[in-house]
């Protein structure tokens, strides 16, 4: 980062990891004015890095040439807009006029058209229609459609036209219907084409507006975003041309999301993650690795490279778990894991004999059909266990009596159903504080209202895993 001309793009799966990373690099001394965050969410510390806010505030002005370009595009757009509006009205009009039909016939079915023309008199007279006014072809067509016979023209009709007049009334109505349908189809097609042009021009204008944003992002050295934002703001990232793309939580991100963040000028790709933990979330269980059919959509690029034999460096020292707990993890999944010195001196937990305890019971769980777990591809509902929930409540109270404030306690559960149950139980004595994602899921399932989710006095944290 001591190099002034290198641009870094950092992508992660969760907002939390992204904020963590941005906070860390700011602490490391990277110039704040060159760091920006795409997307709408942020932590308190990273709120000032929002790209939307900063780009609006910046004084990036449009260049003179760009302004004239914009002017021309807007003017063209107005013309197109008028065209589209008239095409719309034409296409949605209930009826089709006789004149329209005649015009159609002139080009598409001329033998009919000829039959409806007013024959000419050699002596300069014209035929008279109703009320003594000059006869017109639309009158003639109207008469034909009504089933009348040619009357005064019968003698001067050419043979093809006579044939037209010989068509039976019922068949004439069918022809009329057919022409009306054809014309309406044409009107719709014209409408569709003009809308297509309008939308294309609209996109071109959007590109001009975006140009100022693209100019601004080129001045940034560090860009952070989640995978969703990376896809949404792909054009901004392309303009920024990051030299290095750093992907965090790479084990949880679908390969397609990583590929689409890369550009031909990217020089380095760094993937950091853990394929032994959660896989990317997908919806269609049939495509998953677990299903075993071989489609493997939820195999992250990270995992796939490791399985392919790409060189991996594994970090070995862990700084979080006390040795009793790290031993569990070491024996199951991470045989080379080492403990940092700092984990050896943690104080014992007051009131508990062991650092970890497994409790076995035989009270059955209930299915909560209303709620579905986020990562669970099983269509059946989530689960909850009344007995365990009551146990948790008692434990929280007990630890409170040992002097631990609820600030020191976090309750984790795999199931959304249990989360809700725990929330209800704990709210009698505390204010359970849920994270955004869990809130969203519970509201989506209809078991919590938006208003209720806003209550958070930060008393005790409650969350699902993952």
């Amino acid at each position, binding site marked *: 980062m001591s190099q002034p001309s290198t641009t870094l793009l950092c992508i992660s799966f969760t907002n939390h990891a992204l904020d963590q990373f941005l906070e860390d690099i700011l602490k490391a001394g990277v110039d704040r004015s060159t760091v920006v965050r795409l997307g709408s969410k942020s932590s308190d510390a990273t709120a000032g890095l929002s790209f939307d806010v900063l780009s609006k505030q910046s004084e990036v002005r449009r260049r003179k040439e760009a302004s004239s370009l914009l002017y021309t595009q807007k003017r063209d757009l107005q013309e197109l807009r008028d065209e589209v509006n008239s095409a719309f009205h034409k296409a949605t009009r209930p009826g089709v006029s006789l004149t329209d039909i005649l015009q159609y016939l002139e080009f598409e079915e001329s033998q009919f058209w000829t039959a409806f023309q007013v024959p000419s008199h050699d002596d300069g007279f014209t035929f008279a229609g109703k009320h003594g006014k000059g006869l017109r072809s639309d009158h003639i067509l109207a008469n034909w459609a009504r089933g009348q016979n040619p009357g005064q023209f019968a003698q001067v009709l050419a043979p093809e036209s006579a044939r037209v007049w010989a068509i039976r009334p019922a068949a004439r109505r069918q022809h009329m219907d057919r022409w009306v349908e054809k014309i309406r189809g044409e009107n719709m097609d014209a409408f569709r084409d003009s809308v297509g042009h309008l939308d294309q021009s609209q996109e071109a204008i959007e*590109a001009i507006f975006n140009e100022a944003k693209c100019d601004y992002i080129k001045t940034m050295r560090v860009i952070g975003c989640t995978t969703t934002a990376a896809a949404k703001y792909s054009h901004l990232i392309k303009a920024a041309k990051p030299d290095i793309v750093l992907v965090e939580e790479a084990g949880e991100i679908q390969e397609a999301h990583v590929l689409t963040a890369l550009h031909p000028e990217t020089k380095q790709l760094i993937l950091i993650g853990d394929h032994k933990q959660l896989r990317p979330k997908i919806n269609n269980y049939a495509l998953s690795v677990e299903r075993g059919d071989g489609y493997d959509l939820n195999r992250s690029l990270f995992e796939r490279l490791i399985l392919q034999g790409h060189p991996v460096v*594994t970090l070995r020292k862990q700084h979080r778990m006390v040795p009793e707990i790290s031993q569990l993890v070491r024996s199951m999944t991470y045989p080379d894991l080492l403990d*940092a010195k700092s984990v050896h001196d943690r104080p014992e937990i007051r009131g508990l004999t062991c650092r970890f305890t497994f409790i076995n019971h035989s009270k059955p769980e209930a299915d909560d059909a209303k709620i579905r777990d986020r990562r669970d591809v099983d269509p059946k509902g989530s689960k909850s266990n009344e007995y365990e929930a009551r146990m948790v409540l008692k434990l929280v109270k007990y630890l409170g009596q040992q002097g631990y404030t609820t600030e020191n306690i976090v309750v984790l559960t795999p199931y959304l159903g249990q989360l809700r149950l725990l929330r209800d139980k704990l709210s009698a004595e505390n204010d359970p504080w849920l994270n955004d994602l869990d809130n969203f899921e519970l509201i989506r399932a209809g078991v919590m209202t938006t208003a209720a989710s806003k209550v958070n006095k930060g008393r005790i944290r409650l969350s699902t895993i993952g």
Partner: protein
Amino acid sequence: MPSKTVDSGRAQRLDKFFWAFVNGRKEVLSAHDGQLFLEAARSRPDAVSCLETLVANEAGLKSVERSVKMDLGSRFICSIVLPFLSFMAGPEVKAIYEGKLFQRLLKSIITPPTFWNALLGLYLENYFLNPAADAEIFAWLCLEIVSDPGPTLDAVAAGLASALAQSPLLRSSNAKVREYGYRIEKITKLKDTSTTPKEAETPGGRHDNDFANFRHTAVYPTTDELSSTLKPFYRRAAEVANADSSLRPGIHLDNQFRLLREDMLAELREDLQLVGKKKQGKRSAQVLGKLELKDLDTGDMNRGRCSALRVAIGTGLEVLRNQTCEQRKGFLKDNKNILRHQSFGVLCLNNEIICFGFVVRDIELLCQDPPVVGLQFTSSDALTKATAALVELDGVQFVLVPTPVFAYEPVLERLKEMSELPFDSQLLDLPGPENEFHPSEATSRTIQQCLDINATEGPLKVGKKSYHLEQSQRKALVYALSSPVSVIQGPPGS
């Protein structure tokens, strides 16, 4: 790359001429006009503003289009047109406005292909006047044609591919030309996802949205597609991994698209099946019925947006019914989830899908009686279908579907756009020379520092800060700094 005009008097005249043509006061009617115009264009101070000016004025691109066709002889092409192209060939020109202006310039030069055919002829017959320089511009132009995402240049690209097969750029003695040739070959292979005879099933033909080339597939499904009972085409991971190395990048991208789209469709199909039925586990979908088409909204002069239909809602918004306009405003402001802006839904009639669309939420319109909502659709085709349906049919409904298509759509569109797969040799385990990567000097110094520390176990100094890294952290750092693609595993707590 502006050319230097020695004579400032000439420079002034060229400037005047440029504006005369661009403003439409003069027309390009002869080869001489064309020559002067192209010379004037490449004498502009920089290529980016030149392009902007050409596109901003109606006569600008027209003059370019005419000029390049004025004289198809080798002298004119090589000494007048190619230098102009060379001027416009900088990467900054393609970068502005997401490349859209450049695309238009390219289109005006290449279609109709009068000039292009002549140029191609010169290449195949070896009639370039300055073989080295001219071949480079020609190769660059080939690359641009092949990289163009839109359908307009597809035919030209196909013709180009077969011409280059006869006389490959890779045989050139010029290294830059060979480099272009190599990239063109990769892109052509990437875009050509026709299957090999080995594959038992093939893509394409099952319904109106099933194509051999995934780039032609619309992101949103069609009615035919959703009602098709045939198993859609996508490959197992092993099939991709075993594909021929020159075809693998193309097949990989193709499969990524298909699998991701299948994931979206699975969720969409499930949500659509719940339409009209009450199923346990999910709230019943919101259905807007008794719709009446009011108007077309084409945006306004200031910013504009994609066209949308304005539709009055008869049933489905009962919650607003007994509220006054003011009450509704307040209610809608507080409850952003009611008809959330850009929520996804399907326009249908009795379980038959007409098309897909998005809500355009306008509080003013929703306060009317009956409430009016804006509906944007996925394409102009879809908009037209919706219009026809609303006008002709009775009982059309708009059903809100909770599928989070916003999470899929941008990724799918971007996959379609990609003409090159970066790091393909590392990501797909392809044999052959690795992409060369050379760390910068500053990075190399840091790498050296790390390697030295292995002996001393001292801190790593970067700028003003020092960091104490343990051995595996140092190893990871060296690895990341010196490789094009690095994979670092961090177990819990590390």
